[in-house]
């Protein structure tokens, strides 16, 4: 079907401005296919159902809008002693990174893997993204597959002790960065991936994660610092029997953040948790979490926990979906999205969906929005706590449920500190 003219024009303008990078035959083919499907789908527009609450115009525009470069927070996650990979404006910086090796671990970057004729990543690169295009089209993800120049390729063959940390740094004020990561967790293996930093004025990432039977994947990321940056991220996961997938995102600042997470639970008894905490201050702040979890096996457990604190005209969006396919009996699905609006100018827009085709399942979802409780505030004030401290305390308590989704206490504490610091700086 032909695209509407407005969409065709915007798509042409952007696709004309990008180039498909060179690589080995398999990678070139994957990129070309992705380019073709991007052109067929057309880039997103406000009139698309899943973009009704977030205007994708600046993500689609040919040039990245400029964003001031701020200092990076290098201290975060350092207590975990991670294997660190540094990307500067979207390019892997080997000199600033650790040696790429570890027990039970194969690790490299896309630029290097893509030059090889045969690489295990070819079974996943663009494959999970393609699977995630149905039933909801995600053209920004296929554009990423077509144009990504770098990223990390991780294969865990057993338990990996050290977390792997991707630190994104910026030098240019108006650069695009397109990163595409592939993670393969073999049967019984376990790996933790950390991400931090804002990477570019406009960042696009796609992370494809395949977790085999009994495997575990933990993902903790912090998106923040630079107020004017924009980003759209996609996570596509396919998880097997008895496997565990857990992802948590903390977002502070940022003009525009759109995080898509698409999980297919293909094996029985799998567990998938996706959570996020976000604090937004100021009219420019717009944060969108879009999650799509498909239960396609028995006894799956999924949780979506998203909390947003918004002030001074900030906008928070949540679009969550639990799809339970026919036969996915004994599914346990839970979805909660809550927002705390600290003033009258902020907005919360939500679409928490359920689509259920199996009769013996328990799925629940909830969504609430409101101001800070006057009673709770009064109670704390009457105990001698200042209004600012009381507000911060109640805000942290509100966000706590999402932070509890992080399995590693040390990492969780790291993020709690960032959050408390942010609230301190932005209070009042």
């Amino acid at each position, binding site marked *: 079907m032909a695209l509407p003219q407005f969409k065709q024009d915007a798509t042409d303008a952007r696709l004309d401005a990008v180039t498909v990078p060179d690589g080995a035959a398999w990678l070139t083919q994957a990129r070309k296919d992705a380019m073709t499907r991007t052109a067929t789908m057309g880039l997103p527009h406000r009139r698309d159902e899943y973009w009704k609450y977030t205007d994708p115009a600046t993500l689609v525009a040919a040039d990245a809008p400029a964003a001031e470069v701020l200092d990076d927070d290098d201290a975060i996650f350092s207590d975990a002693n991670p294997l660190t990979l540094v990307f500067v404006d979207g390019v892997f910086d080997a000199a600033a990174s650790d040696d790429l090796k570890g027990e039970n671990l194969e690790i490299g970057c896309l630029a290097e893997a893509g030059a090889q004729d045969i690489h295990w990543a070819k079974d996943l690169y663009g494959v999970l993204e393609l699977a995630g295009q149905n039933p909801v089209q995600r053209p920004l993800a296929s554009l990423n597959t077509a144009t990504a120049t770098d990223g990390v390729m991780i294969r865990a063959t057993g338990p990996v002790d050290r977390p792997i940390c991707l630190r994104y740094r910026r030098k240019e004020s108006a650069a695009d960065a397109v990163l595409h990561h592939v993670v393969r967790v073999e049967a019984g293996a376990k790996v933790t991936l950390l991400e931090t930093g804002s990477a570019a004025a406009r960042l696009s990432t796609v992370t494809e994660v395949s977790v085999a039977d009994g495997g575990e994947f933990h993902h903790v990321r912090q998106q923040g610092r630079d107020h004017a940056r924009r980003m759209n991220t996609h996570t596509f996961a396919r998880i097997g029997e008895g496997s565990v997938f857990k992802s948590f995102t903390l977002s502070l600042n940022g003009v525009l953040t759109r995080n898509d997470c698409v999980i297919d639970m293909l094996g029985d008894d799998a567990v998938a948790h996706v959570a996020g905490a976000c604090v937004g201050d100021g009219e420019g702040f717009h944060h969108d979490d879009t999650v799509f979890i498909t239960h396609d096996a028995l006894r799956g457990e999924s949780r979506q926990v998203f909390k947003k604190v918004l002030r001074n005209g900030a906008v928070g969006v949540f679009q969550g979906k639990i799809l339970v396919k026919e036969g996915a009996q004994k599914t346990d699905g839970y979805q909660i999205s809550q927002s705390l609006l600290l003033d*009258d100018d902020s907005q919360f827009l939500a679409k928490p969906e359920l689509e259920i085709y199996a009769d*013996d399942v328990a799925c629940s*979802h909830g969504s609430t929005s409101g101001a800070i409780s006057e009673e709770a505030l009064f109670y704390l004030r009457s105990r001698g706590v200042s209004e600012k401290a009381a507000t911060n305390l109640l805000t942290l308590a509100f966000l706590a449920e999402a932070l509890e989704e992080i399995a590693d206490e040390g990492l969780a504490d790291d993020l709690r500190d960032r959050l408390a610091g942010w609230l301190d700086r932005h209070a009042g």
Partner: protein
Amino acid sequence: MTALDQVEVKEGVDQETVDAVAQLSGAYKYGWNDDDIEMDYAPKGVNPDIVALISSKNEEPQWMLDWRQAAFTRWEGMSVPNWAMLKVADIDFQDLYYYARPKSMEVKPKSLDEVDPKLLETYKKLGIPLKEQAILAGVEGAENDLPERKVAVDAVFDSVSVGTTFQAELKKAGVIFCSISEAIREYPELVKKYLGTVVPPSDNFYATLNSAVFSDGSFVYVPPGVRCPMELSTYFRINAENTGQFERTLIIADKGSYVSYLEGCTAPKRDVAQLHAAVVEIIIEEDAEVKYSTVQNWYPGDEEGKGGIYNFVTKRADCRGARSKVMWTQVETGSAVTWKYPSCILRGDDSQGEFYSIAIANNYQQADTGTKMVHLGKRTKSRIVSKGISAGHAQNTYRGLVSMHPKAKESRNYTQCDSLLIGSQCGAHTVPYIEVKNNSSRVEHEATTSKVDDDQLFYCRSRGMDEEEAVALVVNGFCKEVLQALPMEFAMEAQALVAISLEGSVG
């Protein structure tokens, strides 16, 4: 009999519930056809001539015709909406009759003897008593013989209203209750002032089509300060084959008035799907209150999903005045396809909207239904309670919008929607849209039976109940709320529904 007999039901679902669903949505009781009633048809299809013909049959003034023609022109440029979770075969809008009238209605009968006996037979079979039947068939003067009753009925048979009862008695109270075609002739000022102000002719594909070709429907005006002395009711019957029914209802509750309105619908069993695209507009002024209750029992199609009514309905209430109140209650058991979102525009400060719905879908029925609560005024309140039950191969979707505008300070919404699946081949879906644009309002959306109000739970626990008992009590109490919202006239249906428990629902 329905496939529900053989279906294996998961633990926790009452057998009583399954039986009740089977009974309610099983064999269709109103499925006979009265093909021997002689009908007048307009030619098939829709075009400016048909629009003009409908207008002239109803002896309408020029402004009404102009209004219809404008809507038709707009409709020609529109396309069929496809956002609902419905699989609907393409409808050939040119292959339908847009106007069908029993021949005997050409000249209004003066006595019972003059009425086509077959028409009377139809109402008898629908369970409407003889005396009332006389009135329904449009016999003048029959009302005086009746003992005092409390329901006035407007009966719509295919494209025309065949009669409205108790008009004289209502008139004494100042209430106008008549067919919309009569209102356009007799009260053009009122119709002109309000028609299309809640659902504009440009609203959506089906509402626009309705604006062009609506043939009849009901009109209610309750003057300031009047409490309508009886329940008002419309009974819709589609009889003719390949006929689309497009009725239009306009209800105006002036300042401080109150009216309760009931609606019932049936249609014969036919192999070919039939279209029903109605528009209901309600205007509620300061301190007024309207209760609108529907038991929708259109023919749902057979067990293989053949035939049935395609029900595409736009219903909206505009709470214009301060402290105005509207309550929608619907029990949806019929129709092959239901596409219906009775909505509330809460414009007046302190106005209230409530929506209670039970939707039961069996065999190959598809329902995509819910509500919109648009909070514009300060301290406005809304409550949504929706129960969806799917069985067989049916798909049941709750779709709703709760919108708190920046000026709707200190407003409140509570939404609860539960779904129950009986059998492993059906589906239950929830698509809520929540838009909050100020922080003094509270919005809560829930879709689970286990999450009940903590205070209520604590109260029950403190009285010595265990957790399970307490939850059951609170949840059942909640369910009953929908049924209690149904007026007495729907007691039969309500009784059948009481047996339905939402234990084991999936959220």
